[in-house]
């Protein structure tokens, strides 16, 4: 289900624009509020729904299975590390889900920009950025040629 923005609730902070992996959350040029420019291209990852601090983003079901009258609302509570979903069906039935979303306190994970820039030699390495320290291990496990053949 692609997402859409309630423009009256949006305060134009840009969180959804920053987080959208499909780059389809943009800022309206008349009201300076966010909107989904291309719902067809929405990955339905719901990153924007979960990130919105104003709870201004909702999911709109496809017309063939979720006709008018349904709603999908999300409440993220970072201080509890939970996310709650309230699904309302057209016939009035309601389902509520609460799920944990983090194992560490909110904002305790360093942002990529807070790490030191890798050296030019790092480009020659097979390891990804900040491996293996970021994985909290000394070295990455490797396979011997024999283990590789055994599969």
């Amino acid at each position: 289900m692609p997402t859409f923005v309630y423009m009256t609730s949006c305060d134009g902070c840009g969180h959804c624009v920053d987080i959208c992996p499909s780059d389809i959350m943009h800022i309206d040029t008349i009201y300076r509020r966010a909107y989904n420019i291309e719902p067809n291209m929405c990955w339905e990852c719901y990153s924007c729904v979960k990130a919105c601090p104003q709870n201004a983003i909702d999911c709109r079901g496809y017309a063939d299975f979720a006709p008018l009258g349904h709603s999908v609302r999300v409440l993220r509570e970072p201080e509890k590390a939970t996310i709650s979903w309230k699904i309302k069906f057209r016939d009035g039935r309601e389902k509520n889900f609460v799920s944990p979303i983090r194992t560490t306190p909110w904002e305790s994970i360093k942002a990529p920009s807070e790490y030191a820039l890798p050296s030019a030699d790092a480009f020659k390495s097979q390891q990804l950025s900040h491996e293996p320290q970021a994985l909290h291990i000394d070295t990455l496990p490797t396979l011997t040629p024999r283990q590789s053949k055994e599969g």
Partner: protein
Amino acid sequence: MFTSNPFAALSTSVPPAVMQAYVVVMVLLVAGGTLFDIWHKQSARYFFNHWRMAKKQGARQIGGGEMASLAVRTGLVEVLTSAEFCNQQRRAAHLLTMYGLMIYVVATIILVFYYPTPATPVPVLVPALWHIGALMICLGGYWFWFFIRVDVASEGNSPLRLVRADLFIVSLLASATLGLIWSYAQWVGSATCATVLLGLYLIATTVLFGSIPWSKFSHMFFKPAAAFQKRIEQANESRRNLPAPAKRPATFGGVRRHSHHF
């Protein structure tokens, strides 16, 4: 410069009655533009429909006393301190611009209606407040314009790109900036520059107050109403259809130990 009344110096060429009539016309443009905006966008209709729906969906009714308390809290928190902004820089810039505009407008009205000529000496504080208000608008406004504006900060557009959403902030900044430069030109005694700048200042100010149906000016009236409605919806537990707040899990984010929903 900060203690000189720019409107008193202007009274030698423009009669005070004309200046006062201009201010009245600007006030009427604000009132008329806001009413036209409400009618054109049907925002009042949307607001009251939403209000009725929230009341119907609410688990409890809100009494008059509680509603008054919520209105006071909305005024103190959302309106006076702009607490709805999660970005603290944006909040600070908004507060600077908002209070700057209020001080600037009130000081303009006092100067034009009570001290329009050099014959009535003005207390130093009033022109000082006019200049401080304009400076606060410039500080908050240019900070927002170049660094915080979401289409620049998040979308990566050029700070110099102009769209319709910029009409309010551009005309406000132009009015405050040109007002300050006009006051400076008068203070240094450059008559030609002062006349040209006065013309530009009047154009910017007229656009600011006359473009309400197309600009974001009237958000200052709509936003408090929306914030009040949000508080009402929280209080009557309709919560804009949002889920109820979750119980705090016994173990913080214990995904492995709680593989099912808790």
